[in-house]
Structures are given as structure tokens and as C-alpha cells.
């Protein structure tokens, strides 16, 4: 398969295929083909040879489907044109998080070329390596540590120096790569440019695992505040989102979703839309129903008018009683993360046992723009323009959905509205694919707001979490027990499971099976991917303690039930929920021990990086060491307080601590967050501006999730269907002052940075409410009603 053969139709605007291109090409109608010629990368042709080897597969999160560029070949990652311009190919995409800017910096740094000389192409199954999903705070670690894109760029630089050595007739160790050329260290006139050296040819070499990386001390591009190349096009209305993709002869589709969860199609009366202007076809596949028309407004009107007879829904558990349902429902899938097997004994011997339960609702990704995709399925070939976070997995799962071979499906990423996990991007891609297949022409589908919210996305997990510790006579923690209940249905579609999202399920494909398992087997290897293990315990599994804390009597047990709604990895999945419980509970225990919340945490932490962020945030906030609640606080009027929380994200993928200062109006229960102090350690900092952008956004999104967001439903269906029934904090809300301390660790591997802040916001605010008022709020979101209820309980106790 050549890069050319799957180029989109001529005339389609591909200027924003990558952030790196948008500035120079935005506003011009340029085809992919002419771009590739211009950049000199046309000569690079992928062959199907060189399937992913065993060694690479271990490092490689993608499946490496048929035809995927081999991750071991340098040419899969880097091409240099005769003009010296560098084209880099990556499987980690720009979804607004700024990763493309940082990846361009990485390539420019390792290849020793200016930032503006690198074009980054991401996530197109005809062009880019299979790096699985852009998710899980893994993009930075995947491409910045010593492998993949980073290793490719370092390999290319060394290869260019070798070529230069031959051409200049000088030993390689007397040469230096800089400014897109190889030159003599002693005689700058002896110099040859990359363009002359490689001149658009393939490198034809493997990635060299021993290629030397540039030390951070020599960085000139990484570590700087390089600006995002996509912004000029974004702010002037020139940027091409997936919503703007237009193909010749393109039609518009509209889906018709069931009126109730579990409802199935009895019959569809096609005559109800007969003769309506522009209507092309009514499409029914099992319980998937849609209409295709010439124009969007025609499709909308036809979809509204189409008479579909649905069976009754299967009914939903009561929203009001849902947390009891979650705790009681069977069967469950149980997982033990740690179990020292002495927890019951230690709790039995403890002077005091403290216990609290925390509640976290289903929440939405709630993307700003309803999801959209364009599909062109003709015969046995399909081209899908999709905002998916995983082009290679969706290629394979769409092939299953459409009954095609994966190698006949071409998925091209186009940016959608900010996603934060699994919004309706994959589902709408399947919607467009099914409708296009039915009419044999390109079809664009954009969901309605209600479809996006109630019939499109996979919600973030609900949780009930029991926390228990035992204290000895001196107020020291002797055991920590965490037990949680959550609910799961579906997931990302992966390579084979279109039924993991709503459209695939409606079209007759099953979601991944719920595998009941109880009791839980003992953990065989330590993993804290869900942050189910608190930071304060040892994490002892199989004889080695890989946790960040000191408490050795420890248990963390999770029960999952089958969810009534589709679920997926909403930003900081399970990690936010578990951390909310751990960090609030730690605060409760510290209060009981009449200890300062920072000092008390430090007693039980052993990991230097968690300790440093905790101290860093406290210092930034001028933290006054004293127990909570604030002895100055009054029981009426406005009360002010501060709270702290920290996390080792996924155990070792980013470290952060936050202090929140709040005011609570005790008459109304309204919480205002005044100031945030945040310390972050994500290893070496590639772009401080981009990192701060993620932190600011994560902090405020975390506030919105902590204060107002919750999915609601009635007996039959979801009732959160727009921005009035699913609340979010708008641009006008009172934004806290946010101060950030970035800890740079150039000697450490890169970790994730997009989810550290959001993980600890709810806990920091909850702890600040307690400090201000003495009232402990254990249920998200912290609505004024719930805060008032917590306040009245405190009064009753007093």
C-alpha cells in the first residue's frame, strides 16, 4: 500500500491534517497529494512486509493490523525531502491537548532541525504507525521515552551523520548535526544539508535501540514554550474539523434512536417520509435506524417525521436508589489489587476503626460539539473521516461492522470537539459508515445534542467506595481497607468489538461480555492503574512493595456490576473516583487524629515524588500547619477553608498535589473556589505552556465535575439531554486564581500530564469545605442542597 493510493479525493481541504501544516496551508485548497509532493515525502512507500516483531510488540500498544507501517522501520516514522523538510508520522493525535506541538518539538530536537521545518502527520491508517489509542495519559510516555517517535528521530540523526561522514570523508565523531545539516566540528565550511544527504530517499534501516538521545541540558527546542501551530487557523475559522469535511456527492444522514433503553424496532413505516424533499433512503439494521437525504435540514425533518414502532424499554434501576442498587446487584466481577491478608485482624485489634462511604455519579464527556463523521463506503472499500482516538482499532472494528476486510477500510482522523475519553466519536463513525454503506455514497452524520448526551457517548463510571482504617492508641494508622462497587458496559470498540458503543450494539453486535468472578483471585502483579490503592499503603504484591506509602496492612477490593448504560474511559477513569475517596478519607482520619492534613499525609508516604509535590503545593499556598476544621470558622454566614489532596497518578504516571481555598455560604450551601495552588511532576517538561494549559483546563473541568455534573434518568431513559439538564460551569463562572508549580525532572522518563490535575480537584474542594465548616461532603457533585444537608448533620452532631 502506498501513501498515495489512499489519498482523499482531490480538492478536499487537508490543510489541517496535522497541526504542523495548518499555518502555512490554511485557507488554501490543497490536496494531500500535492502536499506530499511538496514535502518530498511522496517517495516513501510502505510495504506490508516487516510485520510487528515480538520485541516491538511488547513496547507497542497497537495491534499492528494488516498493512500497518512497521514500528521497527525508521521510514515508518520519518521522511526527509530534498528540500530538507521533515515529515514525521505518529499514531498519537492532536485532540486539543497540545501533544502535536510537543511531538514536533521532540522531532525537531532529536533531528536537530528548526521547529518550523517539521510537519507532523498523525493518525491516518494509510500513513501512520499503529499506536493504538490516543488515551490514558500515555501519549507522552509512548513517544517521548526511549522508543517509537523519539527513537526514530534519534536513529535518523545518527544515520544522517553517518551519511555525512561518507560524503565529507570525515570520521563521524568529528561531525555535528545542527540546523538541518551535518558539519565538521572544527571547520564549519565543511557542511552538507539533510536534503542533499537523503534527498527524499528511504532510510531503509531499523530503529536503533542504542541511538543516543540528546540530554536535556542540550535542548533548544524541547523545554521551550513553542506555540501551537494550529491556533492561527482555529481562531480565524480556517481550521478543518471533521464537521467541515465535505466530499463530492456527499449526502447527509440522521439517526433515529430508541425512545427507551432496551427498546427494539417492531416496524418502520417508510411511507411516513415518502415524497419528502431530498429524502434518499430509510436505513434499518436490527435496531439501528437512520435516514439519508440530500441536505442536512431535509434529513432532520425526515428523521423527525419517520414513524418507527418500538417495543417497550427494559426499564432502569431507580436513580434515587442507584447507589444501593450498585452495592447489592449480582453478579459481580471482583478484583483484588492488594491484600496483605491481615487487615481484618489489624482492624480487630485497633483502638479505633474509622469508616466512611463516598459516592460518585455517572458523568458525561459532554463534548461541546455534537459528534460528527463522514463515511464513504462503496462496494468493498470504505474511507472513514473520524474524530476517533484510535484510527487503527476503529479500522478493524468498522470492518467487522460493515462486513469488510480491515485492509479495505481507510480511517483518517479529523479533529472533533474536545473528547476527554470516549464521547460519541466512535459511535457516530459507525453511524456514518452504516448509512453510507446502505446508499453507496459518501454520508455525513452529525448527532443532535440529545443523541450525543443520551444515545451517543459512553459515560464515566459511577462508584460507591467504602473506606476503613484502624488507628492505634497513639492515632497511627495500622491498616487500610478500600472496597468499591462500580458498573461497566461496553468500552472503546477496540479491534473487534463494534458492540462496545451504542451504534454497534443497535446494529446487532454484542458488547464485550461481562465476565462475572467472585471471589476475586489474589493479585499476581502490582498495578495501580485505577488508583484503587491509596497512596499511603505499601502496595505489597508478590513480595515486593511497589506502592508509594508505608502502611503494610492493606486491602483494595473492587466489584463491578453490569451497567444499565454504556460506560467508558472519561478523563481519569476510576482514578478520579478512587482518589476522591482516598484523599477525603485521609483528611477525615487526620482530623480525627487532630493532626495537620499535610503532616499527617507525610507520615505515611515514602515516595519522594509524591512527597515533593505535596510539600510543593503546600509551600505555594503558604499552608498553615494546623488540624481541620479551621478553629476560626463560624457556624453561620460565609466560612472560608483550605483543603489539600495529592496523587501518584496510576501509581507512577504523574505526580500532583493541590490546595483549594473555598468559601462556603452556609445559608445557601453554595461553594465558591477562590484559589488553587497546584504542584505537578510529569518528568521532563517538553512545553511548559502546553503543560500549564492542561493543568488549568483539568483543574476547572475538575471543578465542574465536582460541583455540578451528574447524569440523571427516569424509569426508561436518560433525562440529561442538553445543557440545562446536564450542567457545566460556563465561561462566566467565578474562576479561582490558579497558581502552578512545575517540577521539572529531566533525568526521569516522561509521564502523563493531562489527567493529574483533574484527579484531585474534588478531594481538595471537599476537604476545604470540611475545613471551612466542619461538614464532610461525601457525594459528588457538591450541590448546594447536599452541602446544606452535610451542614445540618454537623449541627446535629454538635
Amino acid at each position, binding site marked *: 500500500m502506498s501513501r498515495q493510493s489512499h489519498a482523499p479525493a482531490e480538492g478536499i481541504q487537508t490543510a489541517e491534517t496535522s497541526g504542523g501544516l495548518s*499555518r502555512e496551508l*490554511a*485557507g488554501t485548497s490543497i490536496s494531500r497529494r500535492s502536499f506530499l509532493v511538496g514535502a518530498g515525502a511522496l517517495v516513501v512507500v510502505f510495504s506490508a512486509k516487516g510485520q510487528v516483531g515480538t520485541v516491538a510488540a511488547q513496547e507497542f500498544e497497537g495491534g499492528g493490523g494488516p498493512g500497518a507501517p512497521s514500528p521497527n522501520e525508521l521510514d515508518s516514522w520519518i521522511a526527509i525531502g530534498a528540500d530538507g523538510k521533515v515529515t514525521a508520522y505518529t499514531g498519537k493525535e492532536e*485532540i*486539543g*491537548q*497540545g501533544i502535536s506541538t510537543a511531538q514536533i518539538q521532540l522531532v525537531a530536537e532529536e533531528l536537530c532541525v528548526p521547529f518550523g521545518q517539521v510537519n507532523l502527520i498523525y493518525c491516518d491508517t494509510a500513513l501512520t504507525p499503529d499506536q493504538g489509542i490516543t488515551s490514558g495519559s500515555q501519549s507522552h510516555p509512548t513517544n517521548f521515552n526511549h522508543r517509537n517517535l523519539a527513537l526514530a528521530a534519534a536513529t535518523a540523526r545518527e544515520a544522517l551523520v553517518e551519511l555525512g561522514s561518507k560524503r565529507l570523508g570525515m570520521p563521524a565523531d568529528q561531525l555535528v548535526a545542527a540546523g538541518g545539516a551535518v558539519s565538521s566540528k572544527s571547520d564549519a565550511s565543511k557542511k552538507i544539508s539533510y536534503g542533499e544527504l537523503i534527498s527524499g530517499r528511504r532510510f531503509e534501516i531499523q530503529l536503533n535501540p542504542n541511538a543516543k538521545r540528546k540530554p536535556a541540558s542540550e535542548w533548544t527546542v524541547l523545554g521551550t514554550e513553542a*506555540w*501551537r501551530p*494550529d*491556533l*492561527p487557523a*482555529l*481562531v*480565524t*475559522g*480556517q*481550521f478543518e*474539523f471533521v*464537521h*467541515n469535511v*465535505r466530499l463530492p456527492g456527499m449526502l447527509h444522514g440522521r439517526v433515529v434512536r430508541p425512545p427507551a433503553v432496551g427498546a427494539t424496532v417492531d416496524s418502520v413505516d417508510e411511507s411516513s417520509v415518502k415524497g419528502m*424533499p431530498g429524502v434518499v433512503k430509510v436505513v434499518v439494521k436490527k435496531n439501528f435506524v437512520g435516514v439519508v437525504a440530500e*441536505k*442536512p*435540514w*431535509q434529513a432532520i425533518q425526515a428523521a423527525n417525521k419517520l414513524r418507527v414502532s418500538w417495543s417497550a424499554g427494559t426499564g432502569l434501576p431507580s436513580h434515587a436508589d442507584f447507589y444501593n442498587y450498585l452495592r447489592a446487584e449480582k453478579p459481580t466481577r471482583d478484583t483484588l489489587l492488594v491484600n496483605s491478608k491481615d487487615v481484618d485482624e489489624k482492624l480487630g485489634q485497633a483502638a479505633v476503626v474509622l469508616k466512611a462511604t463516598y459516592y460518585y455519579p455517572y458523568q458525561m464527556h*459532554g463534548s*461541546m*460539539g*455534537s459528534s*460528527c463523521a463522514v463515511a464513504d463506503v462503496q462496494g468493498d472499500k470504505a474511507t472513514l473521516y473520524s474524530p476517533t482516538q484510535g484510527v487503527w482499532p476503529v479500522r478493524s472494528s468498522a470492518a467487522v461492522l460493515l462486513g469488510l476486510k480491515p485492509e479495505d477500510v481507510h480511517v483518517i482522523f479529523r479533529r*472533533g*470537539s*474536545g*473528547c*476527554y475519553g470516549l464521547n460519541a466519536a466512535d459511535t457516530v463513525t459507525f453511524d456514518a459508515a452504516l448509512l453510507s454503506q446502505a446508499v453507496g455514497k459518501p454520508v455525513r452524520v*452529525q448527532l*443532535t*445534542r440529545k443523541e450525543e448526551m443520551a444515545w451517543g457517548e459512553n459515560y464515566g463510571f459511577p462508584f460507591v467506595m467504602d473506606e476503613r482504617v484502624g488507628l492505634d492508641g497513639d492515632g497511627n494508622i495500622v491498616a487500610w481497607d478500600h472496597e468499591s462497587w462500580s458498573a461497566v458496559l461496553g468500552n472503546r470498540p477496540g479491534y473487534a468489538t463494534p458492540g462496545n458503543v451504542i451504534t454497534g450494539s443497535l446494529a446487532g453486535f454484542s458488547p464485550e461480555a461481562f465476565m462475572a468472578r467472585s471471589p476475586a483471585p489474589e493479585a499476581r502483579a502490582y498495578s495501580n492503574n485505577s488508583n484503587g490503592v491509596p497512596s499511603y499503603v505499601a502496595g505489597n504484591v508478590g513480595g515486593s512493595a511497589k506502592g508509594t506509602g508505608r502502611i503494610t496492612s492493606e486491602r483494595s477490593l473492587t466489584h463491578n456490576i453490569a451497567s444499565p448504560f454504556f460506560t467508558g474511559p472519561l478523563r481519569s477513569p476510576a482514578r478520579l473516583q478512587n482518589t476522591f475517596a482516598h484523599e477525603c478519607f485521609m483528611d477525615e482520619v487526620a482530623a480525627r487524629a487532630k493532626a495537620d492534613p499535610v503532616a499527617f499525609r507525610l507520615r505515611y508516604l515514602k515516595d519522594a515524588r509524591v512527597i515533593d509535590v505535596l510539600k510543593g503545593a503546600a509551600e505555594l499556598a503558604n499552608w498553615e500547619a494546623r488540624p481541620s476544621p479551621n478553629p476560626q470558622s463560624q457556624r453561620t454566614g460565609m466560612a472560608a477553608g483550605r483543603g489539600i489532596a495529592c496523587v501518584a497518578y496510576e501509581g507512577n504516571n504523574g505526580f500532583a498535589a493541590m490546595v483549594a481555598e473555598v468559601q462556603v455560604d452556609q445559608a445557601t450551601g453554595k461553594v465558591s473556589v477562590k484559589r488553587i495552588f497546584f504542584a505537578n511532576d510529569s518528568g521532563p517538561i517538553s512545553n511548559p*505552556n*502546553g503543560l500549564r*494549559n492542561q493543568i*488549568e*483546563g*483539568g*483543574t*476547572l*473541568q475538575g471543578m*465542574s465535575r465536582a460541583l455540578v455534573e451528574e447524569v440523571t434518568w427516569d424509569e426508561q431513559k436518560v433525562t440529561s439531554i*442538553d*445543557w*440545562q439538564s446536564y450542567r*457545566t460551569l*460556563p*465561561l*462566566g*463562572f467565578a*474562576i479561582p486564581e*490558579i497558581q502552578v508549580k512545575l517540577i521539572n525532572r529531566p533525568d526521569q522518563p516522561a509521564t502523563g500530564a493531562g489527567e493529574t490535575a483533574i484527579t484531585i480537584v474534588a478531594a481538595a474542594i471537599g476537604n476545604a469545605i470540611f475545613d471551612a465548616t466542619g461538614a464532610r461532603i461525601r457525594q459528588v457533585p457538591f450541590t448546594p442542597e447536599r452541602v446544606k444537608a452535610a451542614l445540618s448533620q454537623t449541627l446535629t452532631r454538635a
Partner: protein
Amino acid sequence: MSVIRLTVNGQAHALDVDPTTPLLYVLSDDLALKGPKFGCGLGQCGACTVIIKGQAIRSCITPVKAVVGAAITTLEGIGTIDKPHPLQRAFIEEQAAQCGFCVNGVIMTAKAFLDKNPKASEEEIQQAMSGVLCRCFTHVRMLRAIARARAELGTAK
């Protein structure tokens, strides 16, 4: 269908469309403009905002027949990559975007407001933006960018 005459960013168009079509669809499908966006279709988020007679209008809930003959300005019409409007330039200088989907609504709402209230305080700006959503929560930078542009627009006058 009937012929509808519109002036968009100074350019006159005669379009054969259903007069009940929301203006947004005409702008993004018939005229292939990429600035105004479909966020909710309910006038709740601001992504579709355009300016007509100095007012920020939610084009997703405005039938095209209601704006016949009016001069419509979209994000494309206030500046270009080479000659950005002060608000657009401020958004770049403050690096005030994440996914960028909401940017149209934020800039167009801010422009309509600042044009009428060039000396608005930060609280007044915040109040004026209270019906606009950004789900990446780039609020800090966006408000800073609007304040920066206000300073520049104020100096220019």
C-alpha cells in the same frame, strides 16, 4: 425551496434553500464556512454565534428567512491569518485554546460585546460571556485574551 438573498462577510449570495432552514446550516453547508459550528442546536452553548447588526446571534436557532437582506459577519469575516482581528491575535498570544471548537462562540460573543462596551470591566466581560461554554475549560486564557484585546481595541480608539 425558494431563493434567499444573504450578505455574508460582505459578499452577496442568492441561495435556493428551504426558508425554515436554520442559518447555521446555510453558512456551514451551502456556503462551506468553517467558523460557526454546531454545538447543541438549542442556543445553549454559543458555538454557532455570528454577528448581525452588532448583535451576537445564535445561528443554530435562527431560521434563514429571519435574516434575509441582513449583513452577517462570521469568524472568517473579522480577520485572517495574515491580518487577524485583535481578539484573534490575543487568542494566539495567550495560547487560549485546547480543542478550539468553542473558539468561534467565545470570540464572536466577545467581539459583539466589546464593540458596544469598549471600557468594560473584567467582571462585565465575564458576565457577558456567561452564556458561552468551553468544555476543555480554557476559561483562564480566554478571559485573559479578551482583556488583552480590550486594551488594544481601547488604545486604537
